[in-house]
């Protein structure tokens, strides 16, 4: 086929019907307190790694919860486990535990 230099982009939408939520459900079962997240962004605002890299903890864990696992492990590797987010979380979520859990569950993604 002749290559005209055009291609079709993959859809960007999160497709809940197609995503496999098995891992996501496992994560939520093991760390139910993550359900209490209100997306305030305090964790990301204080994040040491986030100040130096593009790491956004709130966004990554939200994506994982929607079944979007691609790249989550690599992203979570940017976390330095300093724990400032855990000190500040208004819902008392063990955010460091969330990082470790996602890394453990999604190591093969």
């Amino acid at each position, binding site marked *: 086929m002749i290559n005209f230099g055009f291609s079709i982009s993959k859809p960007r939408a999160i*497709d809940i019907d197609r995503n496999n939520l098995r891992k996501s459900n496992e994560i939520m079962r093991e760390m139910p307190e993550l359900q209490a997240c209100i997306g305030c962004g305090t964790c990301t605002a204080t994040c040491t790694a986030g100040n130096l890299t593009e790491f956004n903890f709130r966004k990554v864990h939200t994506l994982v919860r929607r079944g979007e696992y691609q790249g989550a492990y690599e992203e979570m590797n940017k976390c330095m486990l300093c724990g400032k987010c855990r000190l500040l979380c208004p819902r008392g979520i063990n955010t460091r535990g969330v990082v470790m859990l996602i890394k453990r569950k999604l190591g093969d993604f």
Partner: protein
Amino acid sequence: MKHVVVIGGGVAGMQCASELARQGVAATILEKESDLGGKVRNWHKLFPTFTPAEELLSALRLRIAEQPHIKVMTGCEAENISPRKVVLKSGEEIECDAVVIATGYTLFDARIKEEYGYGIYDNVITSADLEQMFNRGEVFLTHGGKPRRIAILHCVGSRDEKVCQRHCSKVCCVTGVKQAIELKQMFPDADVFNFYMDIRMFGPGYEEMYREAQQKYNVHFVRGRISEVSPTIDNRLQLKAEDTLTGRPLKMGVDMLVLLIGMKANDMNAELESQSNLRLQPSGFMQPRDSFLGNTESQIGGIFYAGTVTSPKNARESLNEAVAAARSAVAWLNNK
């Protein structure tokens, strides 16, 4: 004995009349429906305590029945209101010494938000419809069967200038969380997703209920407003929204969509303004004399307000305000 006409027999009107009678003033309630109770009559349970609405109504009915100086007139509408006289649509005139307007609000008509398909697609219902289903004890899909995935959409007809409703209706967020919990109790295996712009949990026990919905019932909250709904080939509903917390568009199929419809000002409020020289707010709700010290008073001496005629309120606020309005009316009558 002084005599006050209370226009509207919802919870505010009922409470107001019973307080007036308790203060030694005769009250006449004018209700346009055939029964007292107003909007609460169609509600199943009240947030955040899950108190049956009927429990509140029967307590109020009892208070009214205990007072010999309360007269209830159902099936009649006020046509013209002045502090000393209320004229009914039937032409009947009622003499009085003061008037309390407790005419409440109108539910937003979800058909106006055509993109959500209310009245067009099956299984798109409003929060009010869902309460009626709870009252009947049956929540089914249109063609039978249980819903496996349910979406609840906040702010339908609220905070939306496209439908001329810029105000926040205040109670829908709390209702949405309450209904999510009730649906999870009914269908533990179903997934419930609440799509919200903001979650406004302003009252005691509300935030706690929200957290319970998240942690105990595993209700999913997605910050993003559904842009459109379309039917799928297998008779489900396809939703589109932005998951604003991840910055990505999101789509999903659901079996049922619940629209949390807001509180709209009554059309009648504009008539009140033109007829009786009362003032309207830009939202269409009545403007009290003063937002802090004259919340239950109008611009005209002898005309008072109680409940949602002046702004969206929950049942508790309406009930409290009804007592305040009754007492303002009594104080005004005594000083005259």
